[in-house]
């Protein structure tokens, strides 16, 4: 191929693209904005407000430090594990683990940073090129599996696996094992130091309970919420949290001092209860029946759980499994589930329970699918055999783009 041929090829490929209609639209929008004469005054006012906040924060910190318990309701560790930091190489030398089927997990930080786990390997979206990078290769035997994945800050992220708690302090770029407990499932860290983890030895969740850490996951203590078993916990503020189990939902409004029952699911058997709140008032609770009867139940509250409205019934999408609640707004939620033929189906509930909309997303996933949402961004990972498909949307799920990643190194057992 010579230069002339390349020219021809380029023109043939791109000249058919319709021309840009109005290249100055954004310039016009910008220059038509009213001139902001008030901006300097606004900046000065903002600086004053920030100064006041800083002064108030300094005074508050001094006050807290002078309090007898240093402002932290610290509970002494009970039956804590030894805090040992493992490097990935050391992980491979830890005792063999009970192998779990690999599943995908997803966590979105922003439109620039996201994580996907496949088995016990973790991928991070690269902000420099078009690839997802393997930032944590997992155990050498790949018998591990990440069970939950969560961003806490821009730098700190956690992942529970069947061989312990993994932590990243550099924005997901590298991971280390901070605790070798094999019984950790779901996690909810409120800061880089304080967090809550659902733990238990039964894979079905019959003995799941809550643990609390105050040292970034190095040690854990038992934490009671007056509910047993517990399959889900979510802290929305430093005072407000909800926990759910097959029995129902409990909540605290005083930072965990007292937990009160808010909702009973009724006659089961149920499993895998979940709660999802977008603020201290609006949220959903969801529980699956372990058999066909009773079916799944979904509830909604708009007053922090004082009143729950049942949404379950004939409108609930039938015949679904491996579903997980993704709350996207005060009255909207999504579930990515699988139909009987392993087809990934995305169900959205956008008008406060009056109607579900379920749409197949054109993927199959024998080994599970997960979705995460942040603002209008949706990230979906579906694992089928030796391949994981990562799909992304920036418009709330209306249009999707996707990339396929060979997952065979991590899914072979």
């Amino acid at each position, binding site marked *: *191929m010579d230069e002339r041929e390349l020219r021809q090829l380029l023109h*043939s490929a791109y000249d058919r693209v319709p021309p840009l209609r109005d*290249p100055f639209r954004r310039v016009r929008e910008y220059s038509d904005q009213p001139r902001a004469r008030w901006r300097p005054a606004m900046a000065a006012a903002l600086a004053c407000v920030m100064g006041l906040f800083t002064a108030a924060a300094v005074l508050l910190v001094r006050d807290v430090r002078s309090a007898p318990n240093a402002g932290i309701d610290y509970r002494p560790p009970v039956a804590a594990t030894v805090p040992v930091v493992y490097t990935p190489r050391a992980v491979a030398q830890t005792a063999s683990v009970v192998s779990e089927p690999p599943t995908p997990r997803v966590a979105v930080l922003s439109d620039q940073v996201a994580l996907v786990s496949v088995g016990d390997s973790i991928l991070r979206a690269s902000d420099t090129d078009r690839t997802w990078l393997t930032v944590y290769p997992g155990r050498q035997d790949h018998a591990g599996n990440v069970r939950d994945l969560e961003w806490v800050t821009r730098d700190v992220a956690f992942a529970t696996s069947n061989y312990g708690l993994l932590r990243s302090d550099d924005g997901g770029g590298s991971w280390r094992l901070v605790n070798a407990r094999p019984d950790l499932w779901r996690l909810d860290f409120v800061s880089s130091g304080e967090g809550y983890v659902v733990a238990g030895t039964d894979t079905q969740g019959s003995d799941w309970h809550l643990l609390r850490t105050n040292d970034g996951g190095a040690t854990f203590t038992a934490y009671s919420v007056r509910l047993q078993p517990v399959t889900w916990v979510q802290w929305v503020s430093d005072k407000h949290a909800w926990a759910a189990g097959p029995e129902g939902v409990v909540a605290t409004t005083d930072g965990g001092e007292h937990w009160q029952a808010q909702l009973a699911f009724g006659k089961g058997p149920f499993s895998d209860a979940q709660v999802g709140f977008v603020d201290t008032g609006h949220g959903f609770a969801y529980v699956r029946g372990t058999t066909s009867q009773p079916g799944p139940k979904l509830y909604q509250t708009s007053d922090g759980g004082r009143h729950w409205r049942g949404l379950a019934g004939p409108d609930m999408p039938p015949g679904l499994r491996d579903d997980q609640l993704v709350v996207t707004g005060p009255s909207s939620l999504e579930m990515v589930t699988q139909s009987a033929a392993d087809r990934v189906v995305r169900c959205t509930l956008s008008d406060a329970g009056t109607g579900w909309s379920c749409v197949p997303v054109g993927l199959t996933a024998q080994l599970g699918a997960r979705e995460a949402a942040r603002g209008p961004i949706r990230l979906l990972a579906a694992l089928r055999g030796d391949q994981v498909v990562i799909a992304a949307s920036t418009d709330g799920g209306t249009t999707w783009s996707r990339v396929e990643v060979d997952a065979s190194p991590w899914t072979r057992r």
Partner: protein
Amino acid sequence: MTLSEGLLERAKGGDRLAFEGLFTPYAADAFRLAVAMLQCREDAEDAVQNAMLKAWRRLATFRTGCDVRPWFLTIVANECRSLRRGRWWSVVRLADLCGDGASWRDSLPQEIDLRRALTRLPQDQRLLLVLRYYLDLPFAEVAAIVGGSPEAAKSRTFRVLRKLRRSGELVEAAAEVQA
């Protein structure tokens, strides 16, 4: 004072119509550059709109007497880089999910091969090919956009072209176009 110098001075003074008059001749080239770099009409439109806005806001820093086109195409190229670099979701689009319908979906196989081959090139190398062989810019202008001397730009462009020649699928595509 030439017409374009007059427009430039008025645009620098905040005359938007003068700005539009000055940059209208370059909008088509900017859009073609963005389409070839981003392989996506919507992203290309986004990049050109952003580049126009940046040019409008930074026009005061533009030195009178210099050529406007390479200055503006440099902004467009940087916008394309930012779009590709900035978002993890933008780089995993499939062709059929990004485009405006028939014009892209009806692509010939050899055009798809070309887009694939270009996509595999690093962005700086792709930029060289697009500037030289699609926009037909002289090497002096290519150098002003990518940086370095015209000789260096020429030598780098030929190196990339040699690299592209080794791509078998593109050789076949070129043969089909010839046929």
